[in-house]
């Protein structure tokens, strides 16, 4: 019983650091690079992706016993794209400004390999509650990395965070403009990966 409980906690917390989708598993990189220009956009993108990830994990796990193995991938894709379309319409209706900024990256959540990857590798083999925990953990991990990246990029390129001016004047008058462009995103994700490899994930001795 105790063992089961600790395993569940592991499902939840693995996604945050040890199996972080972006920095460790290196999946779902495209939206992480493209939408992390400002903290607000990155947060909106994370919420949309998290919603789709958690919902698709739950539904896939719910119907896993009825899904024939040979057509599981098409069925997963239909489920994921249904949720993405729901998010797409809802954002268009209620947060149009955010929707216009994110643009094509909302429909592109369909092909985010993090979501199909979790459906295939986890939700198809685990029960609903475990799948929910796994989805939640991965979503939190994804959100954390996106928001951290976007805060750094927004700060160095404009001197603002979430649109508020913060910090010394020299950043505002002489911003590091390249941080807002794609090269800045690549550089930053490399630095974050190096940081996590050096300080957080200690290399384990191989048994």
């Amino acid at each position: 019983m105790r063992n089961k409980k600790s395993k569940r906690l592991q499902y939840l917390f693995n996604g945050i650091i040890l199996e972080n989708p972006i920095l460790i598993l290196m999946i779902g990189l495209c939206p992480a690079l493209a939408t992390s220009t400002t903290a607000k956009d990155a947060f909106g993108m994370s919420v949309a992706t998290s919603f789709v990830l958690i919902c698709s994990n739950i539904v896939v796990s719910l119907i896993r016993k009825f899904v024939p193995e040979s057509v599981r991938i098409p069925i997963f894709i239909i489920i994921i794209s249904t949720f993405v379309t729901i998010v797409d319409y809802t954002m268009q209706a209620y947060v149009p400004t955010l929707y216009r900024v994110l643009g094509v990256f909302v429909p592109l959540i369909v092909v985010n390999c993090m979501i199909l990857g979790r459906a295939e590798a986890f939700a198809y083999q685990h029960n609903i509650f475990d799948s929910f925990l796994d989805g939640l953990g991965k979503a939190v991990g994804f959100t954390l990395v996106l928001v951290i990246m976007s805060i750094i990029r927004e700060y160095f390129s404009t001197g603002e965070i979430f649109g508020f001016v913060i910090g010394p004047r020299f950043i505002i008058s002489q911003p590091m403009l390249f941080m807002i462009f794609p090269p800045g995103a690549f550089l930053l994700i490399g630095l974050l990966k190096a940081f996590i490899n050096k300080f957080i994930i200690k290399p384990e001795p191989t048994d």
Partner: protein
Amino acid sequence: MKSLSWMAISLFIVCLIAAGLLSRVYTVTKIQIEKQKQDGIQKQLSQVLPEAVSFRETIDDTLWLGFDKDNQQIGIVFRTAWQGYAGPIPILVGLGNDTVIRKIYIASAAEGLKETPGLGFKIRETSFLEQFYNKMYKEIQLVKDGGTIHAITASTISSNAVINGIRAGIERFQSNLDGDTNSVQDLQIDTTTGATESDYEK
């Protein structure tokens, strides 16, 4: 054989549920999406021509006539664009019947502005935009050309594009103004070509 038919049936069921759900979501959000689009345009229109209370679209997404509460035409709002540094700069201009510009609005990045952040983007700053408020056509020029506009340092191309875009827009649309102050009020504009009646007489 059972598994083969189940393959098709399960796919069919999933598709059916997905389609039903989506059509429901679509009908629920459709009204709100349309409303958001209209609200967005209305808000920008009254921002650039504050005296007007209602607008009538004369050229689709390009020209609106502004009316006051007595339904008298008091000015126009038009959309214009000019090639900037990285792409066309979309500008919305509110022009009163006295041919004086009320306010202008430059599209954000989300609405199609492609200028460099931190450089060309400064054309969206109030200090630059305010130079255009309450100015007439002949004043919309750089100071060195005899006008009143100061270009943004290191963003001359973007600044010039705004000036040229506004000038071209006024030249094209001023015949739609209605009032005693201008002599072109009798001209009827052809909405497809932008040509006036006098063009046809030639």
